[in-house]
């Protein structure tokens, strides 16, 4: 049973012309930008990560035939088009400020202290336009500017730190660094803590399950099989 699916199996493969950093290559139609680069002969080191759209390693910027616009994409999730003129942006030169989350307050003054450049936002919306994850980047910065940490945390949740917004921002904000701090501030200080969790940890520390667990560990496969078959499954 052959499980591998590959576009090369399609009869009469149609080819398209793409330009990798200006050099022309003919690649099969239907490949992702990433697979097209590999087809062309690139053994990727930079510019590839999870290959599934979660890690932001494969940020790509490109233009199309007769179109002045600059487009952005994740190479692993985007199909090539004839005439695509592309380059990857595998790195953003931006050192993250160091901080101790235990010592921070969840408000605008904290953000301002670590990222004063957020006040330079001119609301041009370039960041939102280039985001491959459809995050409302400018709205998130705006929420932060008016101290609304909670909204900003939720708006930026899907950010994969690909960095395209930061490379294009005229105010030179490194959005994903700001957003990471904002989300942690929300998760630590604004979201309520779980009471059940505290209780369970205490129970474990006090040894509530120790005896039964000792016995269970020593019990062996026969006993485990019985217990497994007797499990009560909680309904959905």
């Amino acid at each position, binding site marked *: *049973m*052959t*499980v*591998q*699916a*590959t*576009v090369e199996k*399609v009869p009469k493969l149609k080819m398209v012309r793409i330009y990798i950093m200006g050099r022309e290559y003919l690649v099969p139609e*239907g*490949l992702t930008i990433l697979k097209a680069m*590999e087809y*062309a*002969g690139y*053994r990727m*080191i930079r510019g*590839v990560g*999870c*290959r*599934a759209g*979660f890690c932001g*390693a494969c940020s790509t910027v490109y233009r199309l035939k007769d179109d002045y616009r600059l487009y952005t994409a994740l190479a692993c*999730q*985007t*199909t090539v088009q004839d005439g695509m003129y592309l380059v990857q942006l595998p790195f953003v030169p931006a050192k*993250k400020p*160091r*901080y101790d*989350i235990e010592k921070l307050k969840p408000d605008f003054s904290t953000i301002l202290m670590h990222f004063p450049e957020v006040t330079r936002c001119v609301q041009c919306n370039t960041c939102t336009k280039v985001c491959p994850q459809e995050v409302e980047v400018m709205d998130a910065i705006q929420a932060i500017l008016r101290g609304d940490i909670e909204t900003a*945390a939720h708006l930026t*949740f*899907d950010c*994969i*730190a690909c960095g395209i917004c930061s490379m294009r921002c005229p105010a030179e904000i490194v959005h994903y660094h700001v957003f*990471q*701090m904002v989300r*942690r501030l*929300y*998760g*630590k*200080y604004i*979201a*309520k803590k*779980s009471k*059940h*969790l505290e209780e*369970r*940890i205490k129970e*474990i520390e006090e040894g509530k*399950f120790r005896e039964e*667990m000792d016995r269970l*560990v020593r019990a062996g496969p026969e006993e*485990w*099989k019985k*217990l*497994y*078959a007797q*499990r009560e*499954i*909680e309904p*959905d």
Partner: protein
Amino acid sequence: MSEYPGYPEEFWESIEKVEATRERRLKEVFKRITPEEKEELLRKWHPDYRPEGKRPLRIGPNKGDSVPNEVADLLESHALIDPKEIDLSDIDYDVDVLIIGGGGAAASAALWAHYSGVKAENILMTTKLRLGDANTKMAQGGIQAADRPEDSPIIHFIDVIGGGHYANKPELVRILVEEAPLIIKWHEELGLMYDKDAEGNFIEIHGGGTSKKRMHAAKDYTGLEIMRVLMDEILNKEIPVLEFTPAVELLMDDRGQVAGAILYNLETKQYYVVRAKATVLATGGFGRLHIQGFPTTNHYGATMDGVVMAYRVGAHLRDMDATQYHPTGAAYPEQIVGQLVTEKVRGLGAQLVNVDGDQFIYPLEPRDVVSSAIIRECYGRNKGIITPTGMRGVWLDSPMIEIIHGEGTIKRYLAAMYRQFKRFNIDITKEPILVFPTLHYMNGGVEINTHAQALNAKGEPIPGLFACGEVTGGVHGKNRLMGNSLLDINVFGRRAGIYAAEHVKHASVGKLTLKHIIKWEELLKKEGIVTDRRAPMILPDYRGERVLSRAIEIRF
């Protein structure tokens, strides 16, 4: 006939059938599999049971054990480096704790070594891609922890050991389930955004094989959320990280200890000698080996380098014959074949349905059962859907989620999935997803004890060597449950960090040596293994055939 522009026309008839049976199926609960049916299903249809897929190892601590061919190929290989080319007297990094890996287990180990007293400058993390580039980031559905009063670590233990076919090391399972709430608490303190209700209670759902709802999730970006917070802490604590610098061989000393590693800068081609009192392997899984030709959910660097290197210093491997295929990898469109469609989709109520619109298995059986059932449906009963590239699959009826939990559920809790398919013009709130099993997880690996120490064939710890996360074996037995990998990397990453920190307090390293590699080469000869294969693999090679046939190395 209705049109589904994201799918080829030949699928439309089947999708209509799925829609037609949906109402009936909403009230239908497919019968759970009996232990006897399970055994037969696995034996006949699980890829692990195909004899052509495996062979006995001819060398090393697990000589004679049956492992997948691709695994045997890497273990029965020459080293990448020639010891004669390496000058061990010139040490580039001299540290207390060397951590090989860049994912969740590596980050946990680094942080807990640091919390346990090892100064940041005495820790070194090294990884073949970037910090955070690992399978961790791609995990979607959730992390298990028995923190509700209706649940307990005892019940969690039984779920784990049953799912693992009773082959797990019970003392490791105990630690996994007992320390789970602690890990969630640690995450809460770090500021992780788990899904919670207005009162602060975690929203917990079922995963495959769980008897109680204990999956904590952060939408369907759980792994990403965990990884990025841990990464943030690594940077905040200023723990040194070398990127694009994989380890290519472990170092030993003249006292039989593991004493560090040889690293290789992929961009400058320079090697580095790292001397370390404790070395922690957190190198992850083996998805990029494409076992039995399966596509994979794994990241680019999942090539089981840690297993290879550990094997050469005498580490014993466990359960390498148990490969986990995730039942629902994307089967269409071709661009994303093999990519993960999280189990959470089934956790929220979506059913698996064949070409006629009928269920054929209870969706939340353990993964090996569901995978086998899908393979049987496609290749045994021929009730699958065949794509233009020859891929086969069954439907995962995601629109059911909107009906059961209300409109907007998918966009809210499965944002990643929704986006992934929308990019290819498929709306999973209205259209089912085509899925087929995909290579997902290395259930086995380097054997460890409760202190995360790597063990040799006699069960003794190899001094100086620790391991945690997917690279290890014994925690999950023959089959891991959903949500226990994110748990594993945190629990045992933490232990590796704590016990490595303890180890370095009294440890001292002797004279560095690569004699074990010379011995390895001799052993290859002795066992009659003739090959030009080299390992570890480091990265897969996907270059086009034409290029590969004409690519040559030129020195200039």
